[in-house]
Each structure stands twice: as C-alpha cells, then as structure tokens.
C-alpha cells in the first residue's frame, strides 16, 4: 500500500487535468480558472480525510469535486436570475493579475477551433447526465471504468449514458436539419426530456 502523497504532489500531478476538464465543461476560460481554484482549495481542506485505500483514485476524486463545483456554479447562475442579490457571491476575478497574453491566447485557441466549438455547442444542448460522461470519455480520454469512479455509477450505466447521449446528438441533429439549422446557429435546439 503506497503512502499518501503530500497535497503539493497531488496538485502538480493533477492540476492540468482538473483545469482541462473545467475548461471543456464550462467552455469559458475565466469560469474555468475560478472553478479550478475552488476545486483545489476544497480538495486541500478535504485531503486529510482522503483515504487511499477506500476512496476513489485521486484523479477521479478531484474530477468529482470539479464536477460538483461546476454544478454548484450552474445552480448559482440559475438562482441569480431570480434573486439578483445572489451576485454578491459572484466569483472572484481569478483572471486578475494573470498574464494577459496567456489569457488572450487561451481564449483565441478555443475560438479558433471551429470543429471543437461546434461539438461543444452540440454537447451543451444535452442534459448534463449525458454531457458529462461524453466530455470525460472523448475530451479527457478517460476510460468507462474511470468515469464510473468519478460519477459513482456502474460501468454499464456509464456506457449506456454515453451511447444514449450520442443518440440524442443524432436526434438533435435531425431536428436541426429539419429546421434548416446547424450547430453553428446561435439558438440551441433541445429535445424535450421524455424519460428520467
């Protein structure tokens, strides 16, 4: 049984993956920066309680925190539409004092990649239960077993979610084509959820 590594080592090893996941999940550099910081602060606090033997692998554990942080952010945004004062809790400006060239370059890279943008837009039209495993599988190159660790669900369920998500993309595309739209159109078209 290996010793529990110091948190610094965990940070060095997994920073890129957490950042990349949040960048692709949010498709927004500033939000991803803010959420990445939150994830590692949360992980730092929880690290003393993390058990190597019983908990999910560190990578899955961190991505799960990141996913929860992103869901929390989505809920906050939804709530802020109804309670304007919720903006009190607006994310700190994490991009402040960062290298402006790096920031601009990052935004540019995301915007330039047309195929990625179209795919990202298509994925955003999916319910999150389909979007997340597809993101993890195709953009983060995680295996179904690893995704099962992140989501805390059986491998078979993860596979099914990925396949059903792709089927939904096909269905959405059919709907768009029938409307004469493509995924580059500004307005997303979503198919109403029928089954839970």
């Amino acid at each position, binding site marked *: 049984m290996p010793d529990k590594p110091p*948190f*610094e080592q965990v*940070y*060095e090893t997994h*920073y*890129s993956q957490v*950042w*990349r996941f949040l*960048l*692709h999940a949010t498709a927004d*550099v500033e939000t991803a*920066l*803010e959420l*990445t*910081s*939150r994830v*590692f*602060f*949360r992980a*730092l*606090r929880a690290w003393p309680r993390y058990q190597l033997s019983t908990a999910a692998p560190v990578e899955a554990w961190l991505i799960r925190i990141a996913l929860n942080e992103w869901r*929390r952010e989505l*809920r*906050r945004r939804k*709530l802020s539409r109804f*309670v304007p*004062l*919720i903006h*009190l*809790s607006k*994310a*700190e400006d*994490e*991009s402040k*004092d*960062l*290298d402006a060239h*790096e*920031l601009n*370059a*990052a935004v540019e*890279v*995301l915007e330039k*990649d047309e*195929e*990625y943008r179209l*795919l990202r837009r298509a994925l955003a039209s999916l319910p999150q239960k389909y979007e997340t495993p*597809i993101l993890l599988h*195709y*953009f*983060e190159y995680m295996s179904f077993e690893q995704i099962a660790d992140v989501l805390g669900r059986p491998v078979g369920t993860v596979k099914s979610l990925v396949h059903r998500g*792709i089927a939904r*993309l*096909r269905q959405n*595309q059919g709907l768009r084509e029938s409307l004469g739209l493509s995924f580059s159109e500004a307005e997303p078209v979503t198919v109403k959820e029928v089954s839970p």
Partner: protein
Amino acid sequence: MKSWEHRLTDTHAPEVEISSHRARLKAKLASGASRHGIVRSPLIVGMLVMVVALAGVTAIHPTWASELLHIILVDERTATAPDGAKVIQRTYQLPSENAGSTTTLVRLEGQDGQITSERAEAGSDALPQSMKDEAEQQVQSGRAKLYLQNAGTFTYEITLSDGRTILYTKGPGESWSISENK
C-alpha cells in the same frame, strides 16, 4: 457525413494551459490562504438576505416579533347578519398598548372574504360596568339595533350617551362582552 462517434473521436480538445494561474494558485495553496469563495453558496447568500431583511423590519418596527407571537386566532364561527348574509366572525388576541394586557380583535368577514367590520375590544375588566348597564338598558327598551345573531348569541350595536358606538354581545346564560369601536 461523419457519425457523431467519429466526430467526437477525431476532434482533439484544444490543449490550453495558463501557467501563471497554475503558479499563483500553487503559492496560494502553500500559504494556507483561506478561500472565501468555496464556502459561498446560494444558501448562505439567501440567509444573508433574510438577516438583512429582518434587521430592516426590526429597525422600522421593533416590536414586530412579539406582536407576531401574540396575534393568535382564538375563535372562528359562522354567523348570520340581520340582513341574512352569512359572515365569518374571527376573534384574534393582540398585544395591547398597555404592557401585559391584550386586546381582542373581532373581525367580520363576508363570504367573499371582504372585511365588513373590525372592532377592537380591550379586556372586559377594563371596560366600565356602566357601559354594559347602559347597553342592557337599550336592549330591554328595544332601542338597540340587532347587529348579528348566531345560535344563542345576539350582538347589538349601541350608541352610548357619550357618543361612542359599541357592540354589545349577549351569549348564552349570563355571558356578555362589549366591543368598543376604536
């Protein structure tokens, strides 16, 4: 046209890294700096909004909490007005201006929910017996106007000699009460 599986497999998500963020976050984590953002949540903000609202209400009306605690519905009954209309008579117990005592508020509501009458009644012991005597006298002489009748309870509207208008209610047996029109 490529299938969605192929599109997803063939598209490589762009690799972007912001090393200045990575270094700064590492320094922050190492310094043990607290991060307020991670404990922020809509729930906490909602609670803050509520605390501010309650503080505001308290500043404007300091006794609101005690008044709220003392406003108790003590009785609710349906009665028939002299014109035949059904009314709901609700009796509330309110804190009185005099500390330690209460006022009874008798409110009559029509079937449509409209308040047709609202009268405050101080504790009956605070009302002079003379009011009751004068009211009883008017009832006996037939000068009192029947205001409300419900089972064995009769409420009369009485104009006293000093000009005040009261509601004099005679219940079953010897029970009675007076509502003063404030």
